[in-house]
Structures are given as structure tokens and as C-alpha cells.
């Protein structure tokens, strides 16, 4: 289906909905035989079903053209996240250097409390950098 066909199909769906709405005058008129009103109610639903079917097709067709862009944009987003990760890696190296120095400072102070608390910071950084 081309874009032209798509536009025509959308227009047809609008027309069908309008026809269905116009039937309300007939359906709500007590002077019309019940059987005829029931047929009109049934016809109204059929018109709306036809319109709904055309619109679902139209959305499927519209969205079908986006697959390539979807893949490309996800790949670009992944690359951008990788850039942010690279920056964070550099910062993590500085964090590791700070934690290493702090740990050795604690060791030289021979303060057990300090050694343990700096180790708590140091260990997770070694783990993530491995």
C-alpha cells in the first residue's frame, strides 16, 4: 500500500464512521419498526468494524517503515552510553588511586579501625577494576 492508498484508506475509514454515526437518528426513532432498528444497529457495528480494520492496517503499514531507524538509533544510543562509560572508567581509575593511597596511609598509621574502613572502600574498587 502506497502513501496515497494509505490516505485514501484513512478517508474511507472516516466516511464509514460518519455513516455509522448518522444511523443513530434511525436507531433512536421509536416510530421505526423494532426489526428495522435492530438491523440498523447491526449495520452500524459492521461499519465501525470495517473502519477499525482499515485503521489497524494503516497503523501496521505506518509503523512498518521504521525498523531500520529503530535499529540505528538503538546502536547510536549504545555508543553514547559507551562514551559515558569511558569517562566513568577514567574517574574510576582516580577513585582507585585515592583508595589505594588511603589504604596505605592507614597501614602506615597501624590504626586497625582505619585499616578496616579504608579496606572497605578499597576492595570493591579492586573488584570492579578487575
Amino acid at each position, binding site marked *: 500500500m502506497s502513501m496515497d492508498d494509505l490516505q485514501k484508506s484513512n478517508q474511507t475509514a472516516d466516511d464509514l*464512521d460518519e455513516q455509522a454515526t448518522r444511523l443513530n437518528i434511525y436507531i433512536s426513532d421509536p416510530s421505526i419498526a423494532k426489526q428495522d432498528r435492530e438491523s440498523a444497529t447491526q449495520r452500524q457495528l459492521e461499519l465501525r468494524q470495517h473502519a477499525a480494520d482499515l485503521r489497524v492496517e494503516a*497503523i501496521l503499514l*505506518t509503523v512498518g517503515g521504521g525498523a531500520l531507524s*529503530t535499529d540505528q538509533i538503538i546502536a547510536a544510543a549504545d555508543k553514547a552510553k559507551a562514551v*559515558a562509560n569511558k569517562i566513568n572508567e577514567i574517574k574510576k581509575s582516580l577513585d582507585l588511586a585515592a583508595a589505594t593511597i588511603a589504604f596505605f596511609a592507614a597501614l602506615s598509621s597501624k590504626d586497625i579501625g582505619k585499616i578496616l574502613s579504608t579496606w572497605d572502600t578499597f576492595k570493591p574498587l579492586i573488584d570492579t577494576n578487575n
Partner: protein
Amino acid sequence: MKYLKIFAVLYWILSLTACANLGSIRDYAKASDDLTSGTEIVTRWKNSDIELNKDNPIIDSKPGLRRSPATQQKADAAASELYKVHDALAQYFSALTLLAADDIPSTQKQGENLSNAIKDLDPKFGDPEQKAFKAIVGLLSIPLEAYRQKAVIKLIKSQDDNVDKLLSLLERSSDIIEKDLKAESNQSTAPYYTLLGDVKDPGIRFLVSERMISIQSANYQPLFTAITKYKKALSNIRDSHKKIGESVASGKDELKQTLSELKVAIEQIIAARKAVKAALN
């Protein structure tokens, strides 16, 4: 000492001017991420027949199904494709938000931690040395800032066509969804028109036609208001993205102007997200 002071001041000025540019892009990307990650309208459309035939405390009879099982299957497939587009756009804007975040290139915390650690190791490492050391570590944020700015600009420029295509696609789909939900709204009044056909009493006819049908139609109003705002926001996101990409190519002054104009677009995008949440959550 003198040189280090100059370095520190220089670093402070450079980091201020560099970060100021990306604040609007970050806010724009964050608002766009929030809007595109929301799929409530698509889900509402997918479940149209379920919503249409929900129990109604006012009237027993049901409006009927507008979709055959085959059409519903296609609607499910269309919705899952729309979810993919939403997800791709949300991933893109989330990456842009991440890159434009001010704390990304800042090495202030690292400079602080390093100088404190050195001070613990060497008591001779006094306040002036600490200040100088922090400034030197802080200088590292300048190339990092340049690196991330380049990445942000490259990302926006390289993806403008894809962003344009996917947002246009969502706008066109939303137009169709809006019309289809209007048809659902019309069909939801069908049981009342059937009831009218069975009633001759003018008082009851007035009550059904002027009150019940109006109330039924009014139930849909917040949904349509939300869709209108949502469509406008999609178009805002698309236009703003294009403008940022174009002004990046034109030069710093134009980029500055575009970024200062983003505020209104951001407010509209945020308002649209709120309207969708209020109508559908």
C-alpha cells in the same frame, strides 16, 4: 604557587562555560525520554474493545466488539511495533540525558579524595599543596568535558534523520489512534441510542439523550485532551531536535539562542506527559 592559582581559576572558568551549554539539552532529553518511554496511549488503543465493553453501572447492554479476532491480532502486532519505536526513542533520549549530565566530566570528587588520601599518608602535604593538587586533578575534567560535548553533538547530528523519521511515524500513528478512539467513543453511546428507540416518553428521552449520552461522551474528553497534547509534544521534540542539530552546524551563537528557546518546548513536553499520566493511570 602563583601558577597553580592561575590554573585553578582557569579551570573554574572553563568548566563553568563548558557545562552551561548542555543544561538545556539535558532537560530537553530528560523530558523527551519521559514522554517517549510512556506507552499508555498505545496500550489504551490496543485494549479498545476491552475498554468499550467494560461493565457500565448505568446501562446493561454492551456496545459490541469493533474488532474481529483477526483484526485484534493485527492490532496487537501493530502495538508491539509501536512499543519498539517508543523504546528506541526512549533509549536514545536516555543516552543523551546521561551524556549531557553535568556530573559526568566532573573530577572534583576524585580530586578531593586523592588529596585527602595523600594528606593522610604524608602530614607535610599541607593546605596550599592540597588546593594545588585538587586544581590539577580538576583540570582533567576539561578534556573530559570536551570529549563528552563532542559526543553529544555527534549523537544529535548523526541521529537527526532517524529521530525525525520515528517521531513522524509516531505522530501519524497517533492521528489514526485518535480517530479510532473517537470511533470507539461514538460506539460507546450505541446502547443509549438503542434505548431511545424503545422509549416514547419525552421526559425519559430527554434524560437519555441530553444527559446519559453527554456524560458518556464527556468520559472520553481527558483522553482526547491528552492525545492532543501528546501529539503536539512529539512534534515539539522533533522540531527542537532538528533546530539543535542545525544550530550546532551554524555556530556557537545560534546554538546558544536555540538552547535558550528550548524552555517553552520542554514545558510543553512535560505538560503532555502529565496529561497522559492523569488520563490513563
